[in-house]
């Protein structure tokens, strides 16, 4: 059997590959003082990859290759766009950070680009093998990047913890996938969807589906598979933490969405209650833990676990209630897009503030706004947005989430909505605490002299701020993503 390769369809991936190779080659050639060129190339390559993506979006045609194993449709394009833009922002954040601490630059960008490539592949993959390889390429480089501050024991520890739990989850995921294959003889999503319909009572399938959920649950850091997240976030270099909490998590969600909705729609009675449980646990446990955090990055780590719980809510609600999954699909993707923007912004602020305060502790941020009002405003914008306060983007994410729950209806759903509501209030408390510390507490300790953040970091902040505010006022910017997701969920 021969297969046609649609080069336009995989052009973004090819551009990223070319960028990776260029970065590696440049790193070999360039003398140390000029190594920052690798960063420039990486940033440019990521931006360039968006060009064919735009073509494909306007083209609008669904391109399917390799027996439907690799599909470029609206859903894939939206997520590829998200991955590329988020990666672009992370590169901007990394630029100065990596350079100033004398880390290996060329390798850093190469590994990060590898991870981006993995996420691009994943967004298009429609069979278990491609999905598995994609997800491995996303996480593999991250295990090492988490430990990139080689001399720092905390960074070592982050890398180690992330890695061990990562391979444990990979093993469990693979075990589940092997059973899926064994039970059906299929690995493509469409084949699985047909073969599994009506098999919900089969214990082996229950086991397989739950194992797969556990594997993805690690990637999205859902409770109780989240333990690595706070430690890895704290220890890893901050841009990597941002990448972990946005791209890597989004990749996990994409995989989960695709497998559950495309491959296993017929056995929602298995995965929906499981996701219900994970959602409820993630929101509650993570929010409670976040209340007591004093380190800003750990706080954001727990916050991102809790946000993952919120993102699971529409998923679980629609599945449990047996409602139309399109709305849930759309709500989760909208949430994902908005979350990516505001969370990246929050981490960019953390980088700037950490440079001023030379500390990751929240107490060191006291009264920061009085010394540096611009920074204070940024902190307020991103943390209030994370809390879901209108008119910043976060409100719309929560709104879409609650709306899809309302549509689903049903008793279990209402309980979940109630849990989500209570958690939204708890979350507000610790987000507000950060803003309060920055704006209202008395400044303590010495602050570093005001250093204007370098251009790339400012660009990253600018993009995220503009998007956070703009989406808040014009949610249609984000609903496009949801619409694309709805199309795929309806099978169109």
């Amino acid at each position, binding site marked *: 059997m021969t297969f046609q390769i649609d080069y336009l369809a995989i052009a973004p991936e090819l551009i990223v590959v070319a960028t990776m190779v260029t970065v590696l080659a440049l790193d070999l050639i360039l003398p140390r003082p000029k190594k920052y060129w690798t960063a420039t190339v990486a940033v440019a390559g990521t931006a360039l990859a968006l060009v064919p993506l735009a073509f494909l979006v306007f083209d609008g045609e669904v391109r399917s290759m390799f027996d439907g194993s690799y599909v470029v449709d609206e859903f894939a394009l939206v997520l590829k766009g998200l991955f590329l833009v988020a990666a672009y922002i992370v590169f901007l954040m990394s630029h100065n950070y990596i350079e100033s601490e004398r880390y290996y630059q060329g390798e850093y960008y190469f590994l990060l680009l590898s991870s981006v490539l993995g996420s691009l592949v994943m967004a298009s993959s429609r069979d278990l093998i491609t999905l598995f390889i994609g997800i491995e390429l996303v996480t593999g480089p991250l295990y090492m990047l988490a430990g990139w501050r080689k001399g720092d024991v905390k960074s070592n520890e982050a890398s180690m913890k992330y890695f*061990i739990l990562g391979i444990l989850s990979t093993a469990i995921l693979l075990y589940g996938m092997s059973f899926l294959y064994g039970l059906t003889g299929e690995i493509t999503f469409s084949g699985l969807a047909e073969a599994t319909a009506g098999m919900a009572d089969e214990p082996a399938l229950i086991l397989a589906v739950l194992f797969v959920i556990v594997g993805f649950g690690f990637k999205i850091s859902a409770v109780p598979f989240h333990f690595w997240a706070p430690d890895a976030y704290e220890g890893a270099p901050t841009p990597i933490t941002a990448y972990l909490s946005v791209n890597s998590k989004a990749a996990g969600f994409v995989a989960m969405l695709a497998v559950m909705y495309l491959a296993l729609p017929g056995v929602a009675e298995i995965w929906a209650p499981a996701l219900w449980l994970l959602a409820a646990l993630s929101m509650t446990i993570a929010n409670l833990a976040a209340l007591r955090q004093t380190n800003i990055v750990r706080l954001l780590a727990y916050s991102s676990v809790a946000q993952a719980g919120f993102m699971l809510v529409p998923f679980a609600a629609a599945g449990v209630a047996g409602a139309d999954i399109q709305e849930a699909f759309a709500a989760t993707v909208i949430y994902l897009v908005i979350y990516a923007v505001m969370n990246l912004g929050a981490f960019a602020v953390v980088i700037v503030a950490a440079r001023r305060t030379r500390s990751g502790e929240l107490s060191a941020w006291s009264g920061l706004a009085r010394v540096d009002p611009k920074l204070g405003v940024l902190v307020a914008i991103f943390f209030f947005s994370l809390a879901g306060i209108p008119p910043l983007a976060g409100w719309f994410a929560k709104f879409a989430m609650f709306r899809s729950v309302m549509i689903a209806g049903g008793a279990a759903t209402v309980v979940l909505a109630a849990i989500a509501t209570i958690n939204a209030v708890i979350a507000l408390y610790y987000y507000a605490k950060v803003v309060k510390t920055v704006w209202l507490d008395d400044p303590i300790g010495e602050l570093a002299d005001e250093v204007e953040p370098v251009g790339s970091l400012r660009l990253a902040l600018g993009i995220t701020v503009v998007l956070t505010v703009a989406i808040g006022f014009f949610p249609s910017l984000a609903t496009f993503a949801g619409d694309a997701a709805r199309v795929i969920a309806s099978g169109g």
Partner: protein
Amino acid sequence: MLLSQFLVLAAALFAFGIYGLLVRRNMVLILLSVELMLNAVNINLIAFESVLVSSEAIGQVFAIFVITVAAAEVGIGLAIVLMIFRNRKSANVDDLSLMRW
């Protein structure tokens, strides 16, 4: 031969791997345990393939991918062990619990 005899054997190996992952203190030994688990997955895949006999030998292809990824993971894991060892003169994972709460 029964399919289930292979599956039960794989389940046992997987369980050994989990046990090893939970009790071993040395990170190299943890990696060995993980290899056991991935190997169990391979036995599953090959056994299923011998029953299903798909036209593209999907189970075997999958197993080859798993082996490849497992090799890559070992490389990553050992690099992390070396890095930690250089800083702390120990490869024991329970020495590393700086970050908590």
